[in-house]
């Protein structure tokens, strides 16, 4: 019989597998050479998972800050945002204003 184990019932059957004594010795030595790590060892996976989550959240926040469009408040920005049609419409308006021959002082009272 290959293995008389504590889990076997009253009529265990031969399964045909053979386990050498040397293999048991080697397995015991391999397992016992694994560092225990103590309390910190138990916490390490949890800590590394927490660090990963914090990193992902941090990156997410940083990226959302970078990707968020800044409000367009300056004249230059608003000019750049105009489409070709809007820009040509604006140019026409400016030409009309020049035809009216408004002086610089009149600009203040125009609107």
């Amino acid at each position, binding site marked *: 019989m290959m*293995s008389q*184990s504590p889990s076997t019932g009253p009529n*265990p059957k031969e*399964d045909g*597998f053979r386990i050498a004594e040397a*293999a048991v010795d080697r*397995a015991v030595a391999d397992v*016992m050479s*694994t560092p*225990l790590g103590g309390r910190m060892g138990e916490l390490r996976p949890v800590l590394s998972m927490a660090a990963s989550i914090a990193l992902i959240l941090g990156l997410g926040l940083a990226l959302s800050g970078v990707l968020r469009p800044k409000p367009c408040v300056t004249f230059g920005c608003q000019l750049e945002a105009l489409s070709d049609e809007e820009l040509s419409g604006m140019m026409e308006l400016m030409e009309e204003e020049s035809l009216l021959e408004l002086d610089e002082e009149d600009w203040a009272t125009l609107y």
Partner: protein
Amino acid sequence: MSSSRRLVKRMGTQRVPLENVQDGSSLTPPDFAAWMRAHYRMVLSQSLRMLGVMADAEDVAQAVFVKAWRAWNGFEGNEAQRRAWLLRITRNATIDAARKRNLRRMMPIDVLLEERSSQLLSSADFDGDAVLARLHGAMSTLPPKQRWVFQARYFDDRPYVDLASETGTSEGALKASYHHARKKIEAILKKDADALFH
């Protein structure tokens, strides 16, 4: 409270044995190496029957005992509970490994049967006859949970009541699982015998 109940008292994080009791109900952790030596064959043989390949079975057994080794000093419970815990993690680990193996190797049943049987017969770790190799081949075609119940009942003759407490499944469900597994294996082996003699 029985004398075997109050075996240890806590001093900080250190467990201090108050007396030595050898009745198996001791809460004092035994020497790990001796304990592993006593249980290694049981774990490895379950893995072998589930996976069929020594290298894979040894990997699973090692993972199980590394888990036990790491939890050794913090384990609260007596020897029977420690063994029950070992059996539970062995079952879970072997079923997981068998599932992964099945996913990797989807193939028709007759091909699997043939491959598995010839693989066993040429293995140095197996000295059973062709019939036993065929039985292992047929077992390898079962779904992992059924295979686990079958090997525990057929080879180890373990009582259903133990298997039920270990798996959290009813005895009825385990009996049904064993019955289905047995029928499938009978059908495979019968077909095999028919092909051989006709």
